[in-house]
């Protein structure tokens, strides 16, 4: 299972999903109406490293983190 965590203001509890790539996670999350409007604005990390490729492979125990728009300071 892959754990998907949603940070900051998204306000959604973590999910456990089956997926072999980030693309498969994307396909699953797009079906979630609570995430409508968020995904296009969010960056993504796998195991706390920022990623930029939907083909990123995933294995059991990996953590996918969804990071909404930021404003520090």
């Amino acid at each position: 299972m892959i754990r998907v965590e949603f940070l900051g203001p998204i306000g959604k509890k973590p999910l456990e999903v089956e997926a072999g790539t980030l693309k498969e996670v994307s396909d699953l999350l797009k079906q979630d109406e609570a995430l409508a409007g968020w995904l296009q604005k969010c960056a993504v990390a796998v195991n706390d490293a920022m990623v930029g490729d939907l083909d990123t492979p995933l294995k059991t125990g990996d953590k996918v983190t969804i990071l909404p728009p930021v404003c520090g300071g």
Partner: protein
Amino acid sequence: MELYEGPLDAKEIFGRWLDEQAASNYGAYIPFVGTIRAEDGIEALSFDIYEPILKAWFDDWQERAAQRGAIVKMAHAIGDVPVHTSSYISAVFSPKRRVALELIDAFVEDFKANAPIWKYDVIDGQRIYAADRSTPMDGAGLLG
């Protein structure tokens, strides 16, 4: 990198950083302090931080600074920070002023764009995400 619950003690932090580097032979020390302004009826701002990625972001900046013979420092608040108090402090030490002036600009701007920190207005005790002032991080939209 230092994280604190609630507002920062700017004088203590700046003074301590200065003392720590007193004998390091840096010719320039440029501090930056972010203070919560009273506007739009807010009583405070509030912050969430995701520490693992913030630390990685900051470690990368330390390496970039080191390549120019400089060091960067930062402190940030977690949770509520009342108006007229400090939520964010950073600083650069470098051998000469030009590197420090350039780095403080680039470091603070990249902080605003890519540090994993989320800001909320606090109005009548309610926490409201500052969506209109927030910026998608580099690479955002991958899953959209």
